[in-house]
């Protein structure tokens, strides 16, 4: 071990002079190259190819033709596209807010000590690992207006039968219910990680000062877990914007186009109407929306961290 210490310090000295040490910089690139090749082929190539297709008029089985930005211009005037953007926005906001609220609540519960805690946490995590299509099919049966168990449960507490995913005005909230059921655990896990890092001392002094539970949560816990809540919001937003399996398996965007999000419209354009060029333009816009969304959220996150530091 002694020789190691000597050698590294010598190497540090060399690096400081700006000369690369001969032995101590192993070549790491060979480790990365195979993955770069694969990522180039299945990830970067599709990105580039999509860009190129988006400036072509290209329906499967027909001649392709370069048309410049016409697909994008068509997109700007496509009411169905704007409607799908709006659906995506509502769907995303609801699918972030509901799990955020419930997940934080669950994290506060699971942060405590009680019997069977580990086992119950394991059960709670199951929905988010379950196969979305399988889950969606069972929810579809539960949403059935006549035979579904949900309307029966509602009738027990005196609420009339709902049409759930079969009605234009309730379809998105119903889908969000499934999404919330599935993804609340992820928020719980992230916030639980935040709670584990919270120090005990402030709570003791707050108790001495006579703070109640809500005050302790509002003025101690919440500020300290705020960065984790922000991470949860970022991850959940990106996932919710992309949501496909649940919506497609349950409604395929219907009834009519009432639950058609960008992702579903994109799928229909490319693989139901085989309008590859137009679908590609949509994919490019969708990609930009997601990158922009994560960029904005990360900016907000950087700001919250900064505000945090000022407080201290």
């Amino acid at each position, binding site marked *: 071990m002694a020789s190691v210490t000597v050698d590294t310090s010598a190497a540090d000295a060399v690096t400081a002079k700006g000369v690369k040490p001969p032995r101590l910089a192993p070549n790491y690139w060979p480790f990365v190259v195979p993955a770069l090749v694969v990522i180039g082929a299945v990830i970067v190539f599709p990105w580039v190819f999509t860009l190129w297709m988006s400036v072509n008029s290209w329906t499967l089985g027909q001649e392709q033709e370069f048309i410049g930005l016409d697909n994008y211009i068509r997109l700007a005037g496509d009411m169905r596209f704007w409607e799908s953007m709006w659906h995506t926005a509502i769907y995303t906001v609801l699918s972030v807010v509901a799990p955020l609220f419930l997940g934080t609540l669950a994290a506060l519960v699971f942060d405590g000590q009680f019997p069977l805690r580990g086992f119950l946490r394991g059960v709670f995590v199951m929905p988010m*690992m379950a196969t979305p299509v399988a889950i969606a099919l069972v929810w579809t049966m539960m949403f059935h207006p006549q035979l579904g168990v949900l309307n029966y449960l509602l009738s027990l507490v005196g609420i009339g039968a709902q049409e759930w995913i079969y009605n234009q005005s309730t379809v998105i909230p119903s889908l969000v219910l499934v999404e919330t059921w599935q993804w609340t655990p992820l928020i719980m896990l*992230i916030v639980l990680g935040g709670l584990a890092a919270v120090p005990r001392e402030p709570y003791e002094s707050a108790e001495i000062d006579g703070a109640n539970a809500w005050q302790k949560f509002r003025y101690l816990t919440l500020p300290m877990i705020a960065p984790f809540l922000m991470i949860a919001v970022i991850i959940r937003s990106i996932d919710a914007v992309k949501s496909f399996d649940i919506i497609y398996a349950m409604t395929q965007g219907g009834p009519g186009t009432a639950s058609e999000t960008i992702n579903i419209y994109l799928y229909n354009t490319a*693989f139901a109407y085989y309008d590859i060029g137009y679908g590609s333009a949509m994919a490019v816009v969708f990609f930009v929306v997601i990158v922009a969304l994560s960029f904005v959220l990360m900016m907000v996150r950087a700001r919250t961290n900064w505000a945090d530091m000022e407080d201290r």
Partner: protein
Amino acid sequence: MTHRMLNRIGLLFAALVMISPVILFFIWMISLSLKFEIDNGAYPPILIPERVAWSNYAKVFEENNFLLYFWNSVLVTGAATLLALVIGVPAGYGIARLKAERAAMVIMIARMTPGLSFLIPLFLLFQWMNLLGTLLPQIIIHLVVTVPIVVWIMIGYFETTPKELEEAASIDGATSWQVFRLVALPIAKPGIVVAFILAVIFSWNNFVFGIVLASRETRTLPVAVYNMLSFEQVSWGPLAAAALIVTLPVLVLTMFAQKQIVAGLTAGAVKGG
């Protein structure tokens, strides 16, 4: 003392309330899968039937080719996961040691990109290469899911493993490959297990690639169960049984590997920001 006991019981009760939608859902799923049509169509709904319809499960395998689809799922997920580990673990190591921020960025953007947007170009590519109708297109496109997740988790893991041992080994004359193989890799085993489990789950659950790329013989389980809904007289019992068969392997894995999954998801989550 009694105050603490009360507190614990209160928390247990709160936790039970929180997980009740999960438990009720899965109980109802099992109930649906074990009832004959008459019981599934009854109002008010029946939770525990007088006659248990085990035949629903037999029907799924007999009438829907589910053994073949199960095998397809195993092949696609297995191949996509193993390939991802073989190329992704060394890549995670290299990127972590090189501190290659831009490579890490590409991986992150790849994880954010909707799977659907890879599907159009790759679908055309597979068509030109005349690969549709085999399992190969699905194995290749599942790499879009598995490679980024493996690389991402391994970058995070190798960033936390100590470099001193590796440096000592390379001074003693070990090649880069030997250092990786004999020093870095053994320490990284827990990280590899996490990457493996998450890659398996996300690949197994994937639906969107299959609905476009799979033909009748190359369906994976999520596609097969969806097709039961769209092309046949919908009978709830076998459909629920099929849904349970599709998701059961993942649920069992979740129960047994809970610690790894939680570690992987929260590590990935914290890094994701």
